[in-house]
């Protein structure tokens, strides 16, 4: 546990220092969503109709931004070799990386989302479900992304390949996440969609670290 916390603290410190890119995902998320009213026009009804999908697609893309360096930086400077030889199992390394990624990219999105909901004229009844949906769904984005990052760690400029691998796997989260928000916006109960969203995240969190560790072992050879 001590070793796990050491890795988590180091990854958070690296993300928050210069060049870490923790603020970058949040800025990308906000700019993307804020561009939409400019492109679509100021009609509140139209914006409110597309807002749930827009916010979720932007969240997907924002979480992709910092994924490609998740393991690659460690692989390039030899840290991954030493981590593989450390008492911390690679499964725990992957889980720590995913958690650090969520804390630096997923959690800020949850906080920023209500502000963006205002600019997209989302009905007030949908604010709570939007926050709940992002809080429940973004962990899946980080964990699935960790698996993709582990698979592409040996690929030079693997960012594009990573997007192609990971985005299809984001679809369940996108469907349930956007559905929960649009149900709430229409005055219906978002509960079932939120539950399914949480189920996707739990499923990903249970399997992801093992898949990522297996991919890392293959890449270390």
């Amino acid at each position: 546990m001590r070793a796990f916390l050491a890795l988590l603290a180091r990854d958070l410190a690296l993300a928050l220092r210069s060049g870490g890119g923790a603020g970058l995902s949040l800025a990308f998320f906000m700019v993307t969503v804020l561009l939409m009213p400019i492109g679509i026009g100021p009609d509140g009804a139209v914006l409110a109709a597309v807002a749930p999908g827009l916010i979720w697609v932007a969240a997907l893309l924002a979480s992709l931004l910092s994924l490609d360096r998740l393991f690659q930086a460690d692989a390039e400077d030899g840290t991954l070799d030493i981590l593989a030889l450390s008492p911390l199992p690679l499964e725990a390394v992957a889980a720590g990386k995913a958690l650090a990624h969520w804390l630096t990219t997923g959690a800020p999105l949850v906080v920023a989302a209500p502000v963006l909901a205002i600019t997209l004229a989302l009905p007030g009844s949908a604010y709570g479900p939007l926050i709940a949906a992002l809080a429940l769904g973004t962990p899946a984005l980080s964990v699935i992304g960790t698996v993709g990052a582990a698979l592409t760690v040996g690929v030079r400029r693997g960012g594009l390949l990573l997007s192609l691998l990971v985005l299809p796997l984001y679809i369940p989260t996108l469907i349930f996440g956007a559905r929960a928000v649009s149900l709430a916006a229409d005055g219906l109960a978002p509960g079932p969609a939120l539950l399914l969203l949480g189920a996707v995240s739990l499923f990903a969190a249970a399997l992801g670290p093992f898949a990522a560790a297996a991919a890392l072992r293959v890449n270390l050879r």
Partner: protein
Amino acid sequence: MGLEGAGIAVDRGGRRVVAEVGFTLSPGEILVLRGPNGAGKSSLLRAVAGLTPLAAGRITLDGAAEVEARIERLVYAGHLDAIKPQLTVAENLAFWARLGGGDAGAALDRFGLSPIADRRAGICSAGQRRRLGLARLMLADRPLWLLDEPTVSLDAEATGLLASLLDTHAARGGMAMVATHVPLGPGPERVLTLAPPGPGSAADPFLEAWG
């Protein structure tokens, strides 16, 4: 007892880079790997460290052939220093100390890094970074040291320090495998000279074709 390897072969990218290598290393001995570039020194060290699987042969440490048992008793310093440029010298070492145990402060002192402990590793010189990478050896008290070109970018003083550390390690019954082109001092050392496997020793014809 000690480290023994017999009939070792290692493949890398579908090509055989180490073939039919054997060695024995008893406690208190230092084995120096020599050979031209591409002779497979790094690959052999990575195989002993358990980072690369063996294509053939076996390696035993005190009679145990399991990789897991070996990994717990060795420390590996590759030709990369595993240093984060955004963190300070002390933070880099403190991370490894928290991960694997050991006293980071003492290791910093031993390698003369205390004066630059608060400096970002990114602005350290190549020699200072290498010393930081080697300071990791001092953290955990492991019997087997695997060093890949440890003297690269070290000055004469630091090379001497490394040689004396290796002597101390050997005197306490430790073992070390060191790939180097530089003589490491007067200590008791044995030399294993590797030669690159000849052409046509491809391990996997499919990979060879697509190589």
